[in-house]
């Protein structure tokens, strides 16, 4: 038994009290090293969750004129949770969030995969093109939102380009039209996050052994057959991870969208995060917000456990 990295099961063995074993020292140090992270995690999860649960059962609001511990005085018999079920604005927001997700994630995936395929082998200029193409994902999302806000002004570049392409002046007020605003928001999301897909899928693509591709070619497989039988199966886990990351992030979509449209016109681009933000800061019905938030946390936790298992398997494959 070497001294380092005593596995967990060894720590549970009865320990001698006479001389400290090497594992002892490691265990103590390991505990001390993980302590700050544990404290931070507890600080942000356990206590806030209990507080959230407590508040979600009441009508408490920062305007109630009493401190939150006394919220029980405003106990409302789970009314927040029953309201939630009939809250059309919430369900519409959820619907819009899902719409953004089902449009943007596949588009980003396909564009990213296509670009990654083009970058799979070496060609002149590859490094510089690569560096430029991944830039959007590093732009601060709020700034990206502002970029697209400018682009989609009725006197802005998008209309200008469309005008010269179509030959007639185009003066569409993108962000004031419910449908067009949604499209604009999606375009911005696709612009910013296709590079992420590209980056991850390319990493997976170059991991496909070239000899296997050549072997398949020599056995008569065409490009599409090679892609289907060699590339896709080998990238399965990577694709799942890439999609999972984007689905999660898409669900949270806020910064870009809020700067571009503020959820409007009206509520035309109001997603879950925007809706919660608005009722938090404008309506100030925090008890109700807490109930919505908690419901989302529960649903996402289930999804998280599933995703974690996938990730663990991906790492197992690579070990």
């Amino acid at each position, binding site marked *: 038994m070497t001294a380092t990295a005593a596995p967990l099961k060894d720590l549970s063995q009865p320990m001698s009290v006479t001389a400290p074993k090497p594992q002892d020292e490691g265990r103590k140090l390991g505990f001390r090293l993980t302590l700050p992270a544990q404290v931070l995690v507890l600080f942000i999860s356990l206590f806030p969750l209990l507080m959230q649960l407590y508040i979600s059962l009441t009508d408490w609001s920062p305007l109630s004129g009493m401190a939150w511990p006394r919220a029980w005085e405003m106990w409302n018999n789970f009314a927040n949770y029953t309201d939630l079920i009939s809250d059309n604005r919430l369900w519409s927001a959820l619907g819009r969030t899902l719409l953004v997700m089902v449009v943007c994630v596949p588009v980003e995936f396909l564009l990213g995969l296509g670009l990654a395929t083009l970058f799979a082998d070496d060609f002149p200029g590859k490094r510089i093109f690569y560096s430029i*193409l991944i830039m959007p994902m590093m732009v*601060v999302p*709020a700034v990206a939102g502002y970029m697209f806000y*400018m682009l989609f002004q009725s006197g802005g570049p998008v209309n200008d380009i469309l005008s010269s392409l179509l030959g007639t002046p185009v003066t569409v007020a993108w962000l004031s039209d419910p449908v067009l605003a949604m499209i604009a928001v999606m375009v911005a999301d696709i612009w910013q996050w296709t590079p992420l897909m590209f980056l991850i899928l390319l990493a997976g693509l170059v991991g496909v052994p070239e000899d296997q591709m050549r072997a398949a070619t020599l056995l008569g497989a065409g490009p599409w057959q090679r892609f289907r039988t060699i590339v896709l199966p080998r990238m399965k886990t990577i694709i799942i991870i890439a999609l999972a990351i984007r689905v999660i992030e898409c669900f949270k979509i806020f910064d870009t969208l809020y700067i571009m449209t503020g959820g409007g016109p009206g509520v035309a681009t109001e997603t879950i995060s925007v809706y919660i933000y608005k009722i*938090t800061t404008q309506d100030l019905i925090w008890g109700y917000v807490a109930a919505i938030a908690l419901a989302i946390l529960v649903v996402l936790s289930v999804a998280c456990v599933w995703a974690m298992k996938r990730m663990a398997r991906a790492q197992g494959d690579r070990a």
Partner: protein
Amino acid sequence: MNRSLSFEVFRYAAILGALAITLIPILWMVSMAFKPIPEWQATGDALTWIPKAPTLDNFRFIFGESSSNLIVALDRTAAKPILSSLLSASIGTLIAMSAGTAAAYGLSRFGSGANLPLALIQLRLFPPMAVMIPVMIMWSFLNMMDTWWGLALIYGIVTLPFAFWLMKTFFDDMPREIEEAALVEGCSRARVFWRITLPMMRAPLASAALFVFILNWSDYLIALLLTTREWVTIPVYMASLSSSMTGQLYGAKAALGLIAAVPPVVMGILIQKHLVRGLTFGALKQ
């Protein structure tokens, strides 16, 4: 493999198209940042793509210098928001990296904190919006609303998962022979960590720190909820920049956007080869 000429033509055409789409929004903002007021918006049908009379007025304006072109005066300049972004993002990075690195080492070497990987992934999964109510209550209780340290603390927690996972994969990849040799020489484990491991991990630590910094610097939502006036960050300040006199202050906002966008883009290019690892929680290495 031999590729046909037509494939090469297609490849370059596709990549050039992608480059154009990638660059137009960025270049438009850059161009806007240097435009004087008359060029901000299309007059008639003439849209200015390249500033005809490039000027630094927009930058001067957001730092409070009065400009002959802009009749409005700002009630506060961009200096403090920039300071706020810098302070909160760097101290947040310090918190995340310290706690994350220590915990990653503890788990990687001693198997301590086996609950952390899942707990931290979950932490990342949740929309910040869904935990902000208790956070806002706690932060007011702790008198941390509208302070850079309050922001730094929440940033440190929010990006802890990235710091932890990145460092964990780096530690897992690191050969242990040197540490073992030092242990045999009689070094204590704590000393090995401080004197051997951390110095060896300087480059990965720097990459991880830059990655975490980018994430902190990029935040908008949390700062929007936790700061109100004194310590608003650049994105919050930028969104508030508008005036009833001139409507949207396009050029000024673009100048500010440029200032906000440059550091993470530069840093991102610096740590290019670790981006995949960071973004996928170490599940993928490039």
